[in-house]
């Protein structure tokens, strides 16, 4: 390159047909974004409810491969990832350019704030630091192979589901409610969660802030997340070295005008030696090349004009493995996931597998939290399970309870952290009678805060709402004289732990709202023999319904 050619903007474009590849790509992106939004909308309990809505997570190869590494098994529909793997072997990182809703959202944001040809071309030049994401995904895969799954912290599809569940869907519903009040009309079908009080999610601020940051950074740096941070993109970049089709530059036709950089999504250097692992196959450069020097093809490719493997030295790969290997003991010795020091608030949804297995499977996509009709499921903060369990689902019974005849969370879990169970299995009915109901935890009474116990005031809402038969909260009458000399009959509640299933309705209905006088803790949960409470059940057979 001797002298920089003068830039002409807009480039002289010959008449283009409407059905060219870039327009078809935009249609594909819109379609998959619609599928993504539609799956969240459809999964609400009064719509299709139990229908399997995690489609985009199931074709996410990083989810499939990392859970296969951590569990040595491939759960339910995760084999769907083969679709994307095959597509990548054929066309490179076509997922990033054509399918990924996170990519589409970023591309759209960047397009809204596009800033002129010169800045775009500068912004779209390849940056060596783009290869750091390979170090991260390498570390995450090593970590997964050792048994700690952390890809959910960064995977873009997971981020989309998590952010839409805890931040964007409630925000949208809030907006629709406002419009409803303003126009006094019924717009409930426009809401993600109609017919319930507005949903709240612990930690939605932090999740929202980070996600908003990922999106808004596109104003200055085009697709920063995709280029520098995305572990799924990095994983597909590792596979794309085998891609059959790729962008090919005809050096004899190329005038080095650099216009192919104008809208290069991946910053993959199409103007020089293409870094194939960074190319999204978005086809923009095909559109922008005024000299017809580029083509997306499988045969007659110029080998010198492309670097197929990621731009990472062997040392950096080793470093990546070391980071993964060192992170494992850091996470696991953190004591939160041990059977001695587990938090009483670490109450998992029904169907969850034993905690260490749970952490091998849960990708924190929060789909269970999205479908939960009562809002009891919440993304965990650092308090319940430490950094390893951040944003995994836990039950917060102060908000609401786990509904008896509901198994939606187990229906949508893409990785089997919450195994698919039926309502009969959850309640221990029919063929599951022998093994008994799924127990989430055990209820206890804090007698120093309970109105009948501590204050001679009748109450027992807890007993009224207890759903087991016979009730796990029983009462006995006691007459007492209060400070004003009145004789009151008090129904004093007590818990029968053999009958309690830990559904938490007693806690959520307890009027001592801020620190409920009856509360559930995780001990006694049926998924873990190490966290049991009772030696045996005292319930005689004739008492079981």
């Amino acid at each position: 390159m001797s002298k920089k050619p003068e830039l002409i903007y807009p480039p002289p474009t010959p008449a283009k047909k409407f059905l060219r590849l870039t327009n078809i790509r935009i249609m594909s992106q819109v379609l998959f974004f619609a599928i993504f939004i539609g799956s969240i909308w459809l999964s609400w309990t009064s719509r299709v409810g139990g229908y399997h809505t995690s489609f985009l997570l199931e074709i996410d190869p990083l989810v499939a491969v990392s859970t296969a590494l951590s569990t040595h098994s491939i759960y339910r529909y995760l084999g769907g990832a083969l679709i994307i793997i095959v597509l990548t072997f054929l066309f490179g990182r076509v997922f990033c350019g054509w399918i990924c809703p996170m990519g589409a959202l970023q591309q759209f944001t960047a397009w809204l704030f596009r800033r002129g040809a010169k800045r775009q071309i500068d912004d779209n030049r390849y940056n060596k630091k783009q290869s750091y994401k390979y170090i991260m995904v390498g570390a995450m895969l090593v970590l997964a192979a050792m048994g700690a799954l952390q890809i959910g912290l960064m995977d873009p599809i997971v981020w989309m589901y998590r952010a839409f569940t805890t931040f964007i869907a409630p925000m949208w519903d809030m907006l629709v409610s406002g419009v409803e009040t303003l126009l006094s009309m019924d717009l409930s079908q426009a809401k993600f969660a109609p017919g319930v009080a507005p949903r709240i999610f612990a930690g939605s601020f932090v999740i929202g802030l980070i996600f908003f940051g990922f999106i808004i950074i596109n104003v200055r740096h085009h697709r920063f997340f995709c280029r520098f941070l995305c572990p799924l993109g990095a994983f597909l970049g590792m596979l794309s070295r085998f891609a059959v089709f790729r962008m090919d530059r005809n050096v004899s036709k190329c005038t080095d005008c650099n216009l192919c950089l104008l809208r290069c999504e991946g910053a993959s250097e199409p103007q020089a030696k293409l870094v194939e692992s960074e190319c999204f196959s978005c086809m923009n450069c095909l559109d922008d090349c005024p000299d017809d020097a580029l083509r997306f093809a499988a045969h007659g490719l110029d080998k010198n004009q492309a670097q197929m493997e990621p731009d990472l030295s062997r040392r950096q790969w080793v470093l990546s493995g070391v980071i993964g290997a060192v992170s494992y003991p850091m996470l696991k010795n953190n004591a939160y996931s041990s059977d001695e020091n587990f938090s009483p608030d670490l109450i998992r949804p029904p169907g969850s597998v034993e905690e260490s297995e749970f952490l091998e499977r849960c990708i924190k996509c929060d789909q269970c939290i999205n479908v939960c009709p009562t809002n009891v499921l919440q993304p965990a903060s650092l308090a319940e399970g430490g950094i390893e369990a951040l944003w995994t689902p836990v039950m917060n019974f102060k908000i609401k309870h786990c509904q008896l005849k509901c198994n939606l969370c187990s229906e949508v879990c893409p990785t089997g952290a919450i195994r698919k169970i039926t309502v009969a299995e959850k309640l221990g009915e029919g063929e599951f009678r022998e093994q008994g109901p799924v127990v989430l935890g055990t209820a206890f009474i804090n007698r120093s805060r309970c109105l009948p116990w501590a204050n001679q005031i009748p109450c027992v809402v807890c007993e009224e709402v207890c759903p087991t038969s016979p009730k796990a909260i029983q009462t006995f009458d006691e007459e007492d004289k209060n400070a004003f000399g009145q004789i009151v009959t008090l129904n004093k509640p007590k818990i029968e732990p053999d009958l309690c299933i830990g559904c938490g309705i007693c806690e959520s209905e307890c009027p001592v709202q801020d620190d409920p006088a009856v509360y559930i803790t995780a001990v006694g949960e049926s998924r873990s023999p190490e966290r049991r409470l009772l030696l045996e059940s005292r319930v005689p057979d004739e008492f079981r319904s």
Partner: protein
Amino acid sequence: MKNTIMSNNDTEKKDAYRPNTLSRRELLLRGTGAAAAVAGMGYLALAPEHWRGSLKDSTGLRSVPVEEPKLLPDFSVAAPYNQHVLGIGRTGTIEQLLRKALDGIGGIQRYIQPGDVVLVKPNVAFDRSPNLGATSSPDILKALVNMLLVDCRAREVRIADNPIESPADCFEKSGIKRAAIESGGRIYLPDGNAFELLNTPGATLIEKWPFFYRPFKDVTKVIGLAAVKDHNLCSASMGIKNWYGLLGGKRNTFHQNIHEIIADLSMLIKPTLTILDGTHVLMANGPTGGDPNLVKKGEVVLAATDQVTADAWAFEHLLERGTNYPDYLYRSEARGSGKIHNTDRLREVI
């Protein structure tokens, strides 16, 4: 390219001295503008509170929202002096039972006129299947909505409840949603916007309380369709207790004085009709139930214009708990909501 030229000129002049003296005209204009803005803001901030447009708040209470409570009309239909107030339908299909019960009090057309907008309030408190007796019977609901729409030519039938568990699921799994869809009723679910402050004159605990008001807009008739259930704290949950499902707010505090709140509920709504389901009576482990063996099946449906009479009769004959009525029935009677002993004004249709 005009812009380019101008910007070139600017850069040339950048360092040159440029006089920037305020002219008299500009001084006057700016001065007047500033004085007007300060005066306007000063009025908003300092003018006495009762002055029009003033924002002054000397007590700190001005921004506390004042909600004007709503009032519900009396939905009852005046009956002749010697009219029966409780009809008891016995033997037959669900539809026959309901029709017989209604015939006992003069037939449903006496109460619902063509063009009425009717609200039916079933008890859908829990996510339970209908055979467990914890929720209202979907079969009776279906027959009732059919009657309202076909026989009485009601303009619209609404079905509303504020369940304890997830509303959509409670309606779905109790069978009420299906019954409503099949018969042509419209379901109202309680979301964040559905509640308004309601004034119930004479009530002691809920004189002003958040109420599931949205489905009540333009309603002309109200029918309660209740399950008859055991209840640990207040002994029985029947027609009057059914209205609990229309309250919002912190209703879990009501159990501290349960009989008083149920007496209040008897004044909350003056319903057109109360219908009690005697086909599935939950005899124990109420109000949630859970065991089909605890449900007493029968062939009885009650229809009443006096909900106190209906509850008393159901307590004695359906729950079989004798005449030692729960305290809330006496309190409701004292409030003038109905009469417990009304034996000469009930009619059994077999």
